[in-house]
């Protein structure tokens, strides 16, 4: 049974259709990427998923059925628009947010202590939240999301506003949660982060699902007909190669239709070219994203 399932969801605000017939599922224990440019409908999809917004059509199943109050205690949500109570001490703020997830104040204090130590915030627990830096508040928000040990973790742009060190810390924390079997939905427009962490993705643009599936399958789907070769020798003219394109110290060979990469490899070996690297060119998620989004813009 999937952890989350959205089936033909549509939601409009006035005359603007925020999401249109969106369907995808997130399996239990999976680290799933929800991608899209700004304004694509990612956050609306999350809010529909969390029952903050009611969809006009379609259905949502979360943790085995429709959303209810008891399920809220098993979900950790870190929205993109982050915020904590500014005029109270950090620990009291965490105790309140934790108590709304069904924890006792003692449990929250005990659990928060470890996280505060890990995120270098232990010395600030009695300080008012407004006295903390933006980065510290961001880390405090991560702690508030994880305190109740959720089964399903939904994080919207978790790396926004973090320096490289803290980005790595949050990334490690997400991987740790993933290893512990927590289902994670990572919503972001930072493709390299998603590429590094997620196995499956859905890409939404203009409220519609543009890509959905296993990340490697999608990359293969967009790989085109080219190979990347790294060599110190000069590449001779090869049958079936239409043109050469320098690429970060290597050369990308664009193949003519019907030419197989193995034929090109055989030709290179036959002509005694010393190869340091030979691989089928796979686009990065960034490249796929740009191609899909630009293609969508052209269609629009």
């Amino acid at each position, binding site marked *: 049974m999937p952890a989350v399932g959205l089936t033909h969801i549509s939601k409009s605000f006035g005359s603007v259709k925020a999401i249109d017939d969106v369907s995808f599922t997130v399996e239990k224990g999976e680290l799933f990427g929800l991608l899209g440019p700004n304004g694509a409908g990612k956050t609306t999809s999350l809010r529909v998923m969390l029952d*903050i917004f009611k969809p006009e059509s379609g259905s949502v199943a979360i943790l085995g059925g429709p959303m209810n109050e008891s399920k809220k205690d098993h979900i950790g949500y870190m929205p993109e628009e982050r915020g904590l109570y*500014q005029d109270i001490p950090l620990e009291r703020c965490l105790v309140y947010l934790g108590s709304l997830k069904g924890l006792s104040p003692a449990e929250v204090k005990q659990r928060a202590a470890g996280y505060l130590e890990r995120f270098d915030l232990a010395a600030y627990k009695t300080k008012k939240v407004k006295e903390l830096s933006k980065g510290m508040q961001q880390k405090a928000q991560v702690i508030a999301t994880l305190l109740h040990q959720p089964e399903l973790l939904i994080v919207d742009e978790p790396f926004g506003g973090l320096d490289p060190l803290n980005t790595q810390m949050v990334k490690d924390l997400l991987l740790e949660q993933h290893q512990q079997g927590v289902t994670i939905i990572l919503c972001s427009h930072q493709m390299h982060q998603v590429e590094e962490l997620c196995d499956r993705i859905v890409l939404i643009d203009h409220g519609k699902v543009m890509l959905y599936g296993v990340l490697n399958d999608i990359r293969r789907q967009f790989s085109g007909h080219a190979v990347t070769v790294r060599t110190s020798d000069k590449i001779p003219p090869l049958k079936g190669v239409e043109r050469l394109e320098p690429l970060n110290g290597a050369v990308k060979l664009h193949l003519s239709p019907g030419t197989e990469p193995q034929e090109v490899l055989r030709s290179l070996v036959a002509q005694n070219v010393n190869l340091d690297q030979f691989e089928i060119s796979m686009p990065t998620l960034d490249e796929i994203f740009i191609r899909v989004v630009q293609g969508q813009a052209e269609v629009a």
Partner: protein
Amino acid sequence: MTKLWHVVWHEYRRHVFTRRFVLAGLMSVPLIILVIVGLIFLIFALDTNTTPLGYVDYSGLLANPVSAPAPEWPDRSVQILRFETEAAARSALDAGRIQAYFILPADYLSNGRLSVVHLGALKDPARTQFYNFLTANLLRNTDPLIAIRLVKGTELVVQSPDGSRSISSKNWFDVVIPMVAGIAFVIAMFSTGGYLMQAVVEEKENRTMEVIITSVSPNQFMAGKIIGDTAIGLTQIFLWMVFIVIPILAFRNSMSILRGIHIAPQTLLLLVCVMFPAFIMVSALMAAIGATVSEAREGQQMVAMISLPIWIPYMLTGLLMSNPNSPLALGLSLFPLTAPLTMLMRDGLTILPVWQIALTASIQVISAVGAIWLAGRAFRLGMLRYGKRLKWREVFARN
């Protein structure tokens, strides 16, 4: 249900245990009362000159004078000295040993005429003490009970036919207390309602709302806030009462005026049945305003739409006092926003029929429930409107 109480406690603790609440919310009314009482004492002190008074008696009335009863605190006693001649009295006046002297002519008893000589202004407390001294000596051979009655005058008590209510001509506190209680409730209502509105706007402004509503239902959250806000208001009123009741109990033995202070059971009934639901109604309306606006300043402007009607009865005090049972008074008693103050003001001035109390209380309870519904709806629709105001039209729309 537990989450609701977490919201209540968070709301209560966040506002009550703050310097702002202690200074502005809690100390404001006691401080005002303290300043007023202080001013009264200052006026008394400035008005009372304890330099002795003198008299020259040609009538023989004060040949062997008896003393008048000592004046009641905070008035201070003024010594009254006898002089044999006007020249001796004048000399004492010029020397500043007395502040004035009275001359009782030989025919004083037949025409009641006497004269007074003073250099500076002769203030009322000293004059009154001399007149009390004179009255005491005029009545020295009368039955003491009659003498006391003549000095103290008559107390007229107006009583309802069933004997349940009465108002004394000497105890104006019966008229004032319900009005003051009403005003205190309304002040508390708006100061704590203001906290609630601000809290809702802040939660929108600092984006905590989205996290909260994925933890607790909007209805529970709103109910928790309203209960918390009402508890803050009741705390405020309770502590005001403590500040007021303690000095009354402390001084009631030395100030007879304080002995007349008591709260009628009907006033308490009105506070519970009319004021309490009105408190909840105003809190809910303030929360609804907080949910619809995008910043606190914008909300303050909208609060006027509620506060203005609530204060209308106070502005119409003259009309309500001259005719507390007029159709206008009845109309104001039935309209949810004007009813709280109108009913409390009328309570001190007339005998309110039971049906009117019951009807007003029912209307207030229904209005409070309606306001909670409205707040819940405005909250659900407006909670994620960042930087954009929710239109009231949308709140009342069908879906």
